[in-house]
């Protein structure tokens, strides 16, 4: 996946790109209003960050404690070192229950593990029960945003899709009408599912319980009707104390959508009588990221999506342009840890403007980590400054600018540039921009004449 190409393709439809930008800016704006209602906002961010930093510094201790408590509560705990093992564990549970169809509420982790295609290959039908996720599932697409999975689609497209899949009236684009149709469709799935899968927003070491947040109520509709609840949880989702939820739940929804809290914040401690809760603790690259001191703090992420909504790149290139499960700024610092080569363009899909860092409710220094990944990627890819000079020559420093700047200044750093590169025909700078006019003399020349 190459971000610049994908972004350019997204921008071809200018009206749509601009709509996408405005829609997400509107969410960012709501987040501003909600956060500014709380005088203690910055204190909460600091607390959240410190709690997560602390937890990550003792993660082994808290995981064991969490497991111990969860077991006491009657939750069955599984450990998966990677996506494959996670998927196998899920499959085994399903097979032991002879389950052929399940409902699943939003879980970025199961996206990361590509659980759906795996289960489908094994003959199990998965129904994503979050409306946005159901929409993209119908289209065989992944979510384009971690909180707003179908944010890239227009209601006209959804109306056409629902007409085809759910038999809604042709041309009826009313969101209320379409949501209602999905409600009826999903209700039937909830009533018949033996197993329900959810993600986990927070796991509490002190009590062995876990919390799942939704607005639609789809997670609860699934698990409270099913015989088995499988909760998939990344190991970084642990927090030490129940009261820490006060900090995180105050930040999460306000950062995500500008709501003061999600409609439902469900706390699961033990299964219903005669039923089962399975909790799968998944590593899948997390301990590796934990070992990288520069990027460790990326594991503080609570998946609110605020960095996506604020990112001027994300808003104008769409989630798919990243080609990673988690798109946007946070995805661009997580993904290179999973596959440096595959995601090599992501840390460069940023102007390092820093808005992501300032908006982050757990104070991850995202833009600084983007900068750090750039240093590693150029090294790992064996790129050199010389190659940069080629890129520069193709673009910004072409023509007069190239002659002057490359010739006179960059030369010091990059040794010399061959003239054929300086005068490269592809002038990327000039494609949409005029070049500055070259003045009669440089400032250095003027200074020597007038001041020395």
């Amino acid at each position: 996946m190459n971000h610049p190409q994908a972004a350019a393709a997204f921008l071809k439809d200018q009206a749509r790109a601009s709509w996408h930008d405005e829609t997400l800016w509107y969410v960012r704006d709501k987040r501003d209003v909600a956060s500014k209602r709380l005088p203690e906002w910055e204190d909460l961010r600091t607390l959240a960050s410190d709690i997560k930093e602390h937890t990550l510094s003792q993660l082994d201790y808290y995981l064991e404690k969490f497991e111990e408590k969860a077991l006491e509560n009657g939750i069955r705990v599984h450990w998966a070192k990677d996506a494959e093992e996670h998927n196998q564990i899920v499959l085994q549970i399903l097979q032991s229950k002879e389950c052929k169809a399940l409902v699943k509420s939003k879980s970025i982790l199961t996206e990361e593990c590509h659980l759906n295609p795996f289960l489908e290959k094994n003959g199990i039908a998965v129904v994503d029960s979050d409306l946005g996720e159901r929409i993209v599932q119908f289209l065989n697409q992944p979510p384009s945003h971690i909180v707003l999975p179908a944010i890239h689609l227009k209601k006209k497209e959804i109306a056409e899709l629902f007409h085809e899949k759910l038999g809604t009236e042709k041309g009826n684009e009313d969101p209320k009408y379409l949501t209602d149709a999905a409600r009826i469709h999903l209700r039937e799935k909830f009533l018949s599912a033996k197993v329900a899968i959810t993600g986990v927003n927070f796991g509490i070491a002190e009590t062995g319980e876990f919390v799942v947040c939704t607005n639609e109520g789809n997670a609860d509709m699934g698990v409270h009707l099913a015989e088995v609840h499988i909760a998939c949880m990344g190991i970084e989702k642990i927090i030490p104390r129940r009261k820490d939820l006060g900090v995180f739940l105050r930040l999460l929804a306000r950062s995500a959508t500008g709501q003061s809290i999600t409609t439902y914040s469900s706390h699961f401690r033990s299964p219903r009588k005669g039923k089962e809760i399975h909790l799968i603790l998944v590593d899948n690259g997390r301990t590796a990221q934990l070992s990288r001191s520069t990027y460790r703090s990326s594991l503080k992420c609570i998946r609110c999506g605020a960095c996506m909504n604020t990112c001027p790149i994300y808003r104008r290139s769409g989630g798919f342009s990243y080609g990673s499960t988690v798109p946007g700024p946070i995805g661009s610092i997580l993904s290179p840890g999973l596959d440096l080569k595959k995601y090599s363009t992501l840390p460069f899909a940023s102007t390092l403007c820093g808005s992501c860092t300032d908006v982050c409710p757990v104070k991850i220094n995202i833009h600084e980590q983007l900068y750090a990944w750039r240093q590693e990627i150029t090294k790992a890819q064996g790129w050199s400054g010389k190659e940069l000079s080629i890129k520069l020559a193709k673009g910004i420093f072409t023509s007069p600018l190239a002659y002057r700047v490359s010739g006179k200044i960059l030369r010091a750093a990059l040794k010399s540039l061959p003239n054929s590169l300086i005068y490269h025909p592809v002038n990327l700078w000039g494609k949409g921009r005029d070049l500055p006019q070259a003045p009669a003399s440089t400032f250095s020349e003027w200074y020597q004449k007038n001041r020395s």
Partner: protein
Amino acid sequence: MNARSPHIGLFIPCYMDQFYPQVAQASLELLEKLGCQVSYPLGQTCCGQPLANAGYERDTLALTKHFVNLFKEVEYIVAPTGSCVLHVKSHFPEVMGLEAELEKTQAKIYELTEFLTDVLQLTSIKGKFPHKVGFHASCHGLRGLRLSSSSELQEPSFHKAKLLLDQLEGLEWVPLSRPDECCGFGGTFAVSEEALSVCMGKDRILDHERNGAEILTGVDMSCLMHLQGIGSRSGSKLRYLHLAEILNQALA
């Protein structure tokens, strides 16, 4: 203003030296008008920012060494750019044997407006500039150097450039719909993500135009070069001036 005039070494970004000598000149004259003793150490090179942001910080060692040595003698380094100053402060690589000097360099370098508001503490500039001015808050100055409060944070509102411009008679500050959105320059981003970069620039220009700006100003000429390039291509009427030019003209 301090009774003693501080000795300033003026740092001019490479592209400014080459393409915007008038901005460099305005910065120099402005500081001189304000009673500073300013010198421009000759032999300045690029600070290394474009390389470092592109992932080649390790290749900027020589430039860093050169920079530190060049400005050894001055009390302050002042530069009419936020992003280069941020680079010096945050991304200069460690240089063996030059650690102490490097630290001093990082402590004494100021972006022009912060020098005017924080060191010189200008509160009563006498000058006129009867124009509607939109301010582009370049990101590195905004969120790196904290030249103004950022819209994401809950903090008391402050704005160093506005503090200065508000002192000018007749200047009308144009509020923007998105007061601190990035313009899309981003160094090599401008070419590596050309389509996005231009789109972001267009959106910024539109915001200024819609809100009635007649002049777009800022403290980073690189962002302005990018915006001006797009504006000029699309036939926009907006004019572009660096903040130093406005202040210098107003004080004339």
